[in-house]
């Protein structure tokens, strides 16, 4: 059982955290949900069909956990079923890319990041890599809190257009 859990977490945690962050928005809630998804997966290890990919199975568990949280009137998933289906489709498209690990399959993201302007890239790096608060990002970039929020949101929208374009095989 320990080997099963270790392998599953090492291979799939990045993808599951990514998906859970899309479900919850908040990084702390996403980490909590991702860990819970692996705990459930561990309890249901005998249901896992090793001949099939683990990604959709784990995402299904995370979706159900998020739905159950919504029923208990806890913080709920950010999106409805239609968007979830769209996100699942994108995940399967990323999973079909070459590479062993989730990070290896994200070359489209890396390429698009490189196309962003320096200020946008810095803001995203401070938020995701250095895990700075918005206030800290504002102080580091010498700009207001409102500008930080606008910049981050717009940078991600630009990045999304680029990533989706590359995943569809364009550019």
């Amino acid at each position, binding site marked *: 059982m*320990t080997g099963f*859990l*270790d392998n599953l*977490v*090492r291979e799939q*945690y*990045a*993808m*599951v*955290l*990514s*998906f*859970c*962050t*899309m479900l*919850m*928005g*908040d*990084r*702390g*809630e*996403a*980490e*909590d949900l*991702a*860990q*819970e998804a*692996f*705990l459930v997966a*561990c309890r249901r290890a005998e249901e896992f069909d090793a001949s099939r990919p683990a990604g959709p199975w784990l995402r299904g568990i995370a979706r159900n956990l998020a739905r159950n*949280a919504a029923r208990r009137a*806890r*913080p*709920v998933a*950010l*999106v*409805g079923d*239609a*968007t979830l289906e*769209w*996100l699942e489709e*994108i995940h399967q498209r990323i999973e079909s890319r070459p590479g062993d690990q*989730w990070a290896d399959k994200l070359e489209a*993201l890396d390429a698009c990041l490189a196309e962003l302007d320096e200020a946008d890239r810095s803001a995203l790096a401070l*938020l*995701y890599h250095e*895990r700075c*608060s*918005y206030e800290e990002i504002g102080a580091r970039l010498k700009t207001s809190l*409102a500008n930080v*929020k*606008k910049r*981050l*949101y717009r940078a*991600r*929208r630009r990045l*999304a*257009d680029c*990533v*989706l374009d590359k995943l569809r095989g364009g550019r």
Partner: protein
Amino acid sequence: MNDASRLPDEVAEDLLSGGLAEGDAQRLRQGAGAARDFAGALLVHGLLAGREADPEKALAAIRHRLGKRSPARRWLLWTAAVAAALLIAIAGSLLLPPWRTMAPSGAHVVSGTLEGIEPGSAEVPLGRAIGTGREHVVLACREGSRLDVAPESSLTLRGKAGRDRWRIELAAGGVQCDVPNGQDPFRVCTRAGDVVTEGTRFSVRLAEGYKGLWGLAVSVAEGRVRVERRPQPNVGVAAGGLRLFPAPTASRQEALLALRLLFPGEAVEYLATKSVGGLLEIEGWIGDQDVEAVVAPDGSVQSYSRELPRGELPGALPAPVREALRARFGPDAQWVEAEVEFRGGTVAYEVTLRVQGKEVEAKLDADGRFLGREENE
């Protein structure tokens, strides 16, 4: 995806980061959660977070939650536990005072209605799940300790001879324990940790947060208690202290849990946290009233406050406070707003009045003594 109307960038960003109040976020999710721009930003938000994931750290946390231990380590722990138990038993029989070798003889209801006991009986049987409804219930133990059980609480009393003669298993709600001279040792056991008396009057409040996160608020009026939350080190809380476990961070789940602990039984909603001078300020609201707590990094509550309903002023203020304000500012002063603040075991009322066209702020204790005065206009 449908094509819902676009959100302002800042609002969408707050929604993505969990920075919006839960009520606002839920309303926005209905219409904006699937907007194309928002979904694209959400996708990248997840991809970037996943790119920074640390699987080894996550694995350690998952293993911890699973409570997994290797067979060799489990064997070592069992051996150590048995050896320790033998040593304690031998030492205890030699050193413990005689009252510690006798099991408690029971408790009875002093006031209020307790659920789970025989109808018409005041006797509280040990080992049976009991609970309170909408009112406080006071129990007395034969050895002199008293328990004030908060409304909507569930608990089981157990007793045995030994160091922790009384064991209160608190499943929900809260209990205030008045233990004279520490002669009747109590252990209040909760899923968020145990609180052990060291001769004292104290209260324990348990609340549930997000996804199995449980928190404790421990307030000590006299003496001292020890809080045991394995595997964390034990923490002592001295008289006058009010401390939250776990100590809240800027995480919205922990901040909301802190507010639930400080305002038990209320439909409290979380608004925001900010760090000011090394302290965490947590803001929220209950109905139309703002609430705020200031907490140190170790979980010690510096102060917490609650706005009083404007429509209920001045009636919501204690009579000595009302009378002192009328005496100072006259009967024509208009009541603008008021809040009650708890700080270090004392209560203060901050009241804003309009006096001859000017707004005046005054701060008084519960006995109507002025603690300061400031003119706003």
